[in-house]
């Protein structure tokens, strides 16, 4: 990555109400830009703001600090700081909006790749990871860093290496409670962490499985019971139905027979009455009678009984003068006639005897009582009796009632038994939550709960196993990463050490200062107490080594780089620095000109900018002459 700073613009910041510092000329970045600025104007502020522009840390700045950037004794509510940069030749503008009222800083980035000005700092995804605060401060260089690099118990040196090579990102991953630990803990599925814990679960699982078997057996046995009860019930019901049907049939038959008998009795009644009617005629009763009557009738006919002449005829005749034959009837005749008339029946008698004779001679045809009535009656009586016998048999047979009652009881008992068994089975088998709660069923009482419990245990074991695997893998990875980190550090340190020592020699020719090793800080060989100048030199040497070893081309922005250095060292630094960085921006005071800045006067690719205060105004001068001759008030 190549980062250049092209322009710095201030508005309402400290003494810089409206100032623009160009670091390029005709689109070309000056190699060196020396900005002469008296103390108190805003060098330190400038350094800070440049850092914010790059490290995206402005939002964490405390409000007091933000407010301190306000031009003194002013009412400005806002200030603005802009940094025009090019990143890999892509020009971008970074704007800081300073809210003095609330003590906030907001970012605006004008990144053509993002389509114009946007809120926030967005220098692109490629660059952003590189520009972290602890890295940015390596090249937007705070002079104090120099001392820290050599301070025991100060890890700045190491951190610088880490920062440059981003090994801090690596550490963040594998360190304790770092990313890997965090991920693992998040993804720990089970809460079983020990071998014993796992064994416990396994024992529980074994027991639970045994229990499940037991429950299943119970269920099976209960189901068998129910089946058995069902078939018994089925048989009993069938039997009862058969009995009832039998009874029903019998009842039907019974009714039938009774009806039949009723009918027969009706018929017998009819026939009896007809028989009686027939019997009323004696000749129907017996042939003897009919014979006797016929004989009598015949005899009566033969004997001319009754005589046809009645007594009355003769009595009448006796009163006549003349007989029917014509002879006269005198007294004598009359007496004889009257006398003989007694031999004759009276008319009435003749009548009745005639009637008798007529009747007995005209008897109706004899009715065969046996054929017509008696046999039929007998037959019907026989049928009635047969039916009655059948009825009584049926009657006896409808004593199925006892059996039916017995079976009804049996069915009731079976039903009750089935209900109990079903209830029990339900307890074992229900998978309805409400029921499980209602009956207070535990995993030992219920198959569904037992299976859930087993599943839970199995899952725990699986999770534990998974966890173990995960943990062991993560451990392994951490170890690898840790190894890579430490080895990398070692290697880098070794390289940097060598190179830094080389550079130190170049700069501090007359002094034998060696970095013996790079621990957390730069550990010097033999020397107790190093001067400020030496410290700075070592720092630059170290930094330049760092940057020279990195793939980045970064500007080196430094604030009063040479003040503590003696002239010789100044010269060396001034000579070395340009070789170390592609772009250098140096903020100096006038006192640093000698020995340091004057080294550049003959250098073509250099900016000499003087910022001075005159009255209330801040003036900028870009000429070398002015630069050379400028004297600040201090």
């Amino acid at each position: 990555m190549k980062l250049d700073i092209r322009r710095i613009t201030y508005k309402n910041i400290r003494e810089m109400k409206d100032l623009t510092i160009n670091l390029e000329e005709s689109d070309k970045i000056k190699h060196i830009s020396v900005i002469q600025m008296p103390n108190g104007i805003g060098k330190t502020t400038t350094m800070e703001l440049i850092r914010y522009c790059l490290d995206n840390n402005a939002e964490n700045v405390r409000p007091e600090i933000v407010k301190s950037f306000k031009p003194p004794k002013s009412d400005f509510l806002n200030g603005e700081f802009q940094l025009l940069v090019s990143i890999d030749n892509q020009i971008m503008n970074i704007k800081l909006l300073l809210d003095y009222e609330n003590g906030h800083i907001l970012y605006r980035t004008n990144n053509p790749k993002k389509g114009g000005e946007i809120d926030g700092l967005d220098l692109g995804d490629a660059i952003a990871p590189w520009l972290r605060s602890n890295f940015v401060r390596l090249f937007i260089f705070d002079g104090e860093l120099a001392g820290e690099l050599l301070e025991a118990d100060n890890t700045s040196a190491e951190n610088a290496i880490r920062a440059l090579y981003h090994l801090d990102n690596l550490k963040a991953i594998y360190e304790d409670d770092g990313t890997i630990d965090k991920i693992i803990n998040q993804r720990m599925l089970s809460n079983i962490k020990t071998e014993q814990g796992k064994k416990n679960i396994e024992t529980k699982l074994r027991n639970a499985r045994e229990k499940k078997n037991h429950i299943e057996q119970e269920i099976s046995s209960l189901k068998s019971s129910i089946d058995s009860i069902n078939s018994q019930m089925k048989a009993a019901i069938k039997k009862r139905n058969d009995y009832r049907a039998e009874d029903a049939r019998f009842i039907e038959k019974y009714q039938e027979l009774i009806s039949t008998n009723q009918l027969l009795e009706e018929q017998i009644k009819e026939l009896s009455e007809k028989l009686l009617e027939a019997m009323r005629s004696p000749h129907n009763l017996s042939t003897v009678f009919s014979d006797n009557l016929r004989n009598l009738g015949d005899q009566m006919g033969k004997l001319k009984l009754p005589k046809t002449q009645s007594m009355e005829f003769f009595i009448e005749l006796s009163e006549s003068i003349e007989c029917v034959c014509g002879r006269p009837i005198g007294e004598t005749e009359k007496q004889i006639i009257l006398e003989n008339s007694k031999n004759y029946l009276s008319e009435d008698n003749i009548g009745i005897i005639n009637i008798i004779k007529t009747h007995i001679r005209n008897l109706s045809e004899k009715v065969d009582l046996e054929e017509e009535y008696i046999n039929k009656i007998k037959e019907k009586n026989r049928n009635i009796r047969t039916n009655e016998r059948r009825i009584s048999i049926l009657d006896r047979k409808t004593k199925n009632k006892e059996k039916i009652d017995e079976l009804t009881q049996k069915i009731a008992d079976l039903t009750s038994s089935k209900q109990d068994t079903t209830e029990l089975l339900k307890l074992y088998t229900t998978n309805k939550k409400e029921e499980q709660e209602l009956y207070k069923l535990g995993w030992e009482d219920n198959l569904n709960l037992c299976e859930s419990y087993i599943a839970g245990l199995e899952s725990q074991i699986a999770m534990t196993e998974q966890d173990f695997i995960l943990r062991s893998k993560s451990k392994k990875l951490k170890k690898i990463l840790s190894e890579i980190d430490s080895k990398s550090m070692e290697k880098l340190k070794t390289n940097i050490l060598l190179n830094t020592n080389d550079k130190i020699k170049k700069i501090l020719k007359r002094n034998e200062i060696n970095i013996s090793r790079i621990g957390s800080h730069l550990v010097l060989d033999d020397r107790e107490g190093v001067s400020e100048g030496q410290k700075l030199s070592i720092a630059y040497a170290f930094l330049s080594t760092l940057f020279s070893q990195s793939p980045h081309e970064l500007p080196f922005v430094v604030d009063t780089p040479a003040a503590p250095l003696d002239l010789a060292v100044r010269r060396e630094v001034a000579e070395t620095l340009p070789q170390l960085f592609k772009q250098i921006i140096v903020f100096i005071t006038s006192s640093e000109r000698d020995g340091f800045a004057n080294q550049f006067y003959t250098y073509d690719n250099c900016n000499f900018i003087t910022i001075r205060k005159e009255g209330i105004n801040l003036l900028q001068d870009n000429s070398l002459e002015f630069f050379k001759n400028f004297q600040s008030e201090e």
Partner: protein
Amino acid sequence: MVFVISNDARRYYTKLNESKHGKFRTMFDFYYLCLIAGMINNKRSTAKGSEFIDQFTKDFIPRREEIIGLLISTEIERNNIDLNNRSRIERLMLALVQPDSASRLSSDGENLMNQYAENGFYKILEEIPEPPINLDTFLITYYEKIVKPYSCD
């Protein structure tokens, strides 16, 4: 003159008439059967019953002359009257009938009837001591035990 029937006969008749297989229309039915039984038996007994009717009932009117004829025939036989003896038969007939009586029988005739009926009841009692529950049983038993043997002699 009237027809009489003994109290025993009445009782018998009453019981018999509780049958569900038909009933006698009147007590005369029973009287008639007693009469026939007596004639078959060819015996008479002292009639000591009480009066119950003075004429043949409606059912028997069509058979009245037949029955009277039978009575005559029975008497002829009992008195051993020669069937060719016209005057004796005539005299017998005149003795038994009475044209102007309700029954068309003389009191002698009725008497005879009552006597035969009385005896006939005993005959019935002999053969059928207890009145059967059903009329048909009675009639058939009467026929078979009393009438039929007579016919087949």
